[in-house]
C-alpha cells in the first residue's frame, strides 16, 4: 500500500491562501492510512472552515489515481468545482497528478507520500519498497535492503548498528540484523558469502507500461 502522512496545517493554510477550496479524498490507500478517507476529508473541512477558509464542496474518489473514474466522479461536482479557486487533494502523489490532469484548477497536495509499505497493525505502517524497478528479494530472504536500509547496502551491514537497531533511527530494526537472524535460523548463512553485484537501475527510467 502507498503510505502517506498529512502535511502540517500551517503549510496547508499558506498554500491555500484564504481562497475557496474544494477537497478531494481517495477511497483506497489514503483511506486505510487515515489521511484521505471520508472521515479525514470531513475533518479537514471543519478545521479549514474554522480557520476561515471557504469550503465549496468535497468528494472521495474511487480511487484518485484512476483517470476515467476521476473524470466521471468529478463531473458530478462541476458547479462546486467552478466556484473553487483551489483544489486540495488528500491522496498520494499519483492521485494528485491524476486529479490535476482532469481539472483546470490549481491543485494542492495535502499529504506527503512516504513509501510502499505494510500495514503492521491498525495505524502502523512500515516501509517495504521504493519501487527500484528490479526485485531481488530472494537474495535477502525477502527482507528488502534497498528500501529498508538507509544506505541501501546489498552486501551486509554498515557497522553502525547497535543491538540490532539502525544507526539512523534507534527505533528501526537493522534490516541486515533481520536477514542474518533469519538465515541463521534457517541454516542458510552460506548465502551471505555471495557478493551481490551493483543494482541495475535502468528500469527506474521506465515511465509507462502497457499491457
Amino acid at each position: 500500500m502507498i503510505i502517506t502522512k498529512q502535511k502540517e496545517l500551517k503549510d496547508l493554510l499558506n498554500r491555500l491562501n484564504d481562497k475557496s477550496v474544494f477537497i478531494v479524498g481517495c477511497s483506497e490507500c489514503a483511506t486505510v492510512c487515515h489521511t484521505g478517507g471520508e472521515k479525514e476529508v470531513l475533518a479537514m473541512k471543519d478545521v479549514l472552515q474554522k480557520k476561515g477558509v471557504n469550503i465549496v464542496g468535497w468528494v472521495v474518489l474511487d480511487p484518485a489515481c484512476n483517470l476515467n473514474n476521476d473524470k466521471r466522479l468529478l463531473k458530478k461536482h462541476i458547479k462546486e468545482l467552478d466556484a473553487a479557486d483551489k483544489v486540495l487533494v488528500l491522496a498520494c502523489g499519483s492521485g494528485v497528478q491524476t486529479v490535476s490532469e482532469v481539472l483546470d484548477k490549481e491543485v494542492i497536495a495535502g499529504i506527503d507520500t512516504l513509501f510502499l509499505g505494510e500495514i503492521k497493525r491498525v495505524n502502523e505502517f512500515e516501509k517495504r519498497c521504493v519501487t527500484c524497478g528490479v526485485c531481488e528479494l530472494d537474495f535477502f530472504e525477502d527482507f528488502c535492503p534497498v528500501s529498508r536500509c538507509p544506505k541501501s547496502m546489498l552486501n551486509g551491514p554498515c557497522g553502525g548498528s547497535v543491538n540490532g537497531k539502525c544507526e539512523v533511527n534507534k527505533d528501526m530494526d537493522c534490516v541486515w540484523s533481520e536477514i542474518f537472524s533469519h538465515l541463521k535460523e534457517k541454516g542458510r548463512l552460506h548465502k551471505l558469502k555471495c557478493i551481490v553485484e551493483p543494482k541495475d537501475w535502468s528500469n527506474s527510467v521506465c515511465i509507462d507500461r502497457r499491457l
Partner: protein
Amino acid sequence: MGYRSNLEKALSERGFAVTVEIGPPKGCDPARIREKGEMLRGCADAFNVTDNQTAVVRMSSMAGCCILLGMGLEPVMQMSCRDRNRIALQSDVLGADAMGIRNILCVTGDHQCFGNHPGSKGVYDLDSVQLIKIIRDMRDKGVFQSGDEVSFGKPEFFIGAAANPFSDPCELMVDHLEKKVVAGAEFVQTQSVFNLDRFVSWMDEVCSRGLDKKVHILAGVTPLKSLKMAERMKFHVPGVDLPDDIFNRIKDSKDQMREGYEISLELIEQVKKIRGVHGLHITALFWESIIPSIVRESGIYHM
C-alpha cells in the same frame, strides 16, 4: 618484488605498518593540510585523507592527497559511496591514479543525517564491497563496472577497506570482512579500539577463518583529548564501543589530556601484540598534534 605503494611494501616486508589520519579543513586553504603533514612527517608509512567524514563538507580527499604528494608524503585516499554514483567514483579512481595516488580505502560512508547537510540526498549507488570489487577489476582485469574496457592506463592501487569489530552480531561483521577480502581488499583499517575484549574475540574469529593471512589488518587507535570527546565517542558516534572503565578514567581524571594519552599508549601496547594485527591506524580526530609523541613513546614506527 614490485609494490604498488610504500604502505604495501611496509606491510609485506616489515610485517607492521602505521597509518595516520589527516582530516581536511572545512575550507580551501592548502596550508592546513601542509601544516598537519609537516607535523606528522616521520610518524607513519602513509596518511589517510578522509572523504567528507561524518558527512560534513570538507576539502576533497583527492585534493588533500595531492597536497601530501607534493610534500613527498604517501597518502591513502578515502572514498565514500555516500556522495557519488559509480560513474563519478570510477572517474575519480582514474583521476587519483593519474595524480600519483597509490593507496585507496573504500568505505560506504557515514549517513548524511549525521552531518552538516542532513537534508541532502544520499547516493549509495554502490556499497563498499562493490566499490572494492570494481576498483580491483579496473586494476586487474582492465574493465569498468559495466564491462567496458579501461583504455590508456589501468589504475594501480593498493586497495583497502574499513572494518568494525564492535558492531553486532560479531559473526556477521567477520562475514562482512571476509566479503571485502573476497571482493579484493588487501588491507583493512578497523574502527578505533577501546574495548579490548571484544576486539580480541573478533580477531580470534578473523584468525580462525585464516583472514589474517589474506589481508593486512591495521587496528584503529584514537587518543581521547577530553571528557567532551569521550562523551561524543561513547554516545554519539555510530559504531564506537567505549567501555565504562575507560570513560570513567577520563571523567575522574584531573588531567584528562594526559589520561587520554596514557590510555592510548596502553591500548597500543596491548593491541600490537594481538595475533593477526599487522599495524596501527591512528585517528586523532583533530588532535593530530599528539600523534608524534604517541608514535615516539610507543616505539611503533621508526623512520
